[in-house]
């Protein structure tokens, strides 16, 4: 805190004393008690549910009812719960997991592919109607998927696609935000000179795209992939209205069905399996984040420094 004082040029003693003592320097952020407290509250707010989930997935149904929510019960049933989750109802949980992977693979993967192709084209090619496309994409970012769900349902119903995996995969292919992100990223990350040089050397447009542009876009692609993966993985409302056959449910719908079993006469109450299933459901996402974050971070800094 005293560095700024000594650093300031001293002409006489009087101004030196008047120099603000708590001058803020970029290298050394100002400490702020309020911010620290707010930060701590935020951390609590986000981490406590996760801790709760981990602790409670170790409990049996009776342990859940008669123990404190934030501490372990006398019995440790995590492995039993995991086994039961995968074997309950003829192992339908595994089927739901595969469904989710299918929806994420085709839906989020396809959405990323389309966003990369579209973003690159919009950023690096001049064609009539570009501004109109821009307006549509920006507008589409603002429309929540939930608002489109019912019209989409009616349309798909006419086409006879409801209650098939396509009803979930096709709408997931559209990611206006991903397209916008790829567009901005492509404009920043690929110097037009590089493309011109490639063309000059006689490379075809396809080859230019795959060999010159694509490697430069990698961080952006990972970012978009992460966003679309999370969105598809967590999607609840779209499958809820599209699917009737439980064999096509993704994890989100399946877990909610298990949870609502507790509300029916004679229904099995399996809160312990719902909780363990929820934990198992978020593990792949956590793994994806940890694995992909380094690419993501390197991508986020693009364009932050003027060269």
């Amino acid at each position, binding site marked *: 805190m005293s560095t700024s004082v000594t650093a300031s040029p001293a002409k006489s003693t009087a101004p030196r004393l008047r120099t603000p003592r708590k001058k803020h320097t970029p290298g050394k952020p100002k400490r702020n008690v309020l911010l620290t407290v707010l930060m701590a509250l935020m951390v609590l707010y986000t981490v406590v549910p996760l801790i709760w989930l981990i602790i409670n997935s170790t409990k049996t149904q009776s342990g859940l009812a008669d123990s404190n929510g934030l501490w372990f019960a006398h019995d440790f049933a995590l492995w039993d719960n995991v086994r039961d989750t995968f074997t309950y109802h003829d192992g339908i949980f595994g089927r739901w997991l595969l469904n989710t992977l299918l929806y994420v693979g085709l839906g989020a993967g396809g959405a990323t592919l389309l966003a990369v192709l579209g973003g690159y084209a919009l950023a690096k090619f001049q064609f009539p109607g570009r501004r109109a496309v821009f307006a549509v994409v920006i507008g589409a970012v603002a429309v929540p998927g939930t608002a489109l769900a019912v019209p989409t349902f009616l349309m798909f119903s006419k086409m006879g696609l409801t209650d098939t995996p396509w009803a979930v995969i096709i709408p997931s292919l559209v990611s206006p935000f991903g397209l916008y992100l790829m567009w901005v990223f492509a404009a920043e990350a690929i110097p037009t000179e590089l493309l011109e040089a490639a063309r000059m050397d006689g490379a075809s447009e396809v080859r230019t795209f795959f060999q010159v542009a694509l490697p430069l876009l990698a961080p952006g692609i990972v970012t978009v992939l992460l966003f679309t993966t999370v969105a598809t993985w967590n999607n609840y409302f779209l499958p809820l209205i599209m699917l009737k056959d439980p064999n096509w449910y993704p994890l989100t719908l399946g877990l909610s069905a298990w949870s609502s079993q507790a509300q029916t*006469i004679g229904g099995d109450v399996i809160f312990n399996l719902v909780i363990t299933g929820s934990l198992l459901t978020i593990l792949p996402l956590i793994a994806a984040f940890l694995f992909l974050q380094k690419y993501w971070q390197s991508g986020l800094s693009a364009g932050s420094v003027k060269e």
Partner: protein
Amino acid sequence: MRRTTSRILRGIALVSTLALGVTACGGSDDDSDTKAVSAGDIQAALDKGGDITVWAWEPTLKTVAADFQKKYPKVKVNLVSERSGDKHYTALSNAISAGKGVPDVAQVEYFALGQYSLTKGLTDLAPYGADKLASKYTPGPWNAVSDGDKVYGLPMDSGPMALFYNKTVFDKYKIAVPTTWDEYLDAARKLHKADPKAYITSDLGDAGLTTSLLWQAGSRPYKVDGTKLGINFDDAGAKKYETVWQQLISEKLLAPVNGWTDDWYKGLGDGTIATLATGAWMPANFATGVPNAKGQWRAAPMPAWTKGDKASAENGGSSLAVPALAKNKELAYAFTEYANSGAGVATRISEGAFPATKAELESPAFQSKKFDYFDGQEANKIFADSAANVASDWSYLPFQPYANSIFNDTVGKAYVSGTKLADGLKAWQDASVKYGEEQGFTIQK
């Protein structure tokens, strides 16, 4: 431009049907289907084989379906069981109004049957031989599935009411098990005074419980005669109910917990919710949902509204019905009959379901069954007694699912604000009358 508008309007119409879960029209021509189907026809269909789809969440049906397929190897039963309650009815209504994807057999709770039968969404099973099964069932459930000489489903289970109470808690505070609702009120006061965290029961407004208690008290608010309805909560039975329940609410003697939530299961387990007046199917839910309170709970007959009166009522219970648009009705009926009247009944009882059939209810094996959960109590005797004492002249509205959905906006206010329960019921009545008139019913005032 005009075409888009009309398309949007049609979209909105369909969406509102979706939202209300009410079918405006079943779109069926079921009336032509009244010729009798002989046992031979059904047997021929079974021998020929085929696929049927069953939408039902009742867990014991899994074994029943497996047995059925073993007996009739050419028939494949596709049991869809991951949906229940509102979601189930929304899906069923949507399928019926879309005319596509309708199951061959659907589980329909008694309170919701009217909605589907009145809109001709269900097959009349009488021509298939269902009318001859009347004497097999207790009067409550049979009355719920039949309308004159038409039969819209076969009773799968029933819910004659009983009072479940936590004996450990009652013993601890030396409270006697109430035999009348007045004693129940006294017990509520005594218990809450002894332990401010404990309540006699939980209620934040539950249409099913309220209608069942009115039923038991002798109130008959709904009169249904085809499309002519009477809706009136102003009778002596309703007065009895209002008096007791108003005091429970005003004196804050009811735990402010919604039924079927995790809080509720927790309360049933830790002794803060001491009794539960509900259907005889509850032991199965106790065993899986509240395993930690095993040995603490017991069953007792429902408290009477007038001392010595034995009247009981039903709470919950469901039937299997065959939608009018079912593809393979002979097979659908054969399965329904097998599950709810034939060999399936024994299977289902052995897995914990509560029967609707007289023979099973009265059999010594059933009555002397000892419940581990209730510390060896032969609770079925109490339930069977209750089933025999259910008054059979109760009817639900043809749009009861809708009426139940607005219960919390009307009667529910009495639980959270100063509104009187009687005013809440009046508001419920008015809202139901208004909706009924909008749907084209004639309401007799």
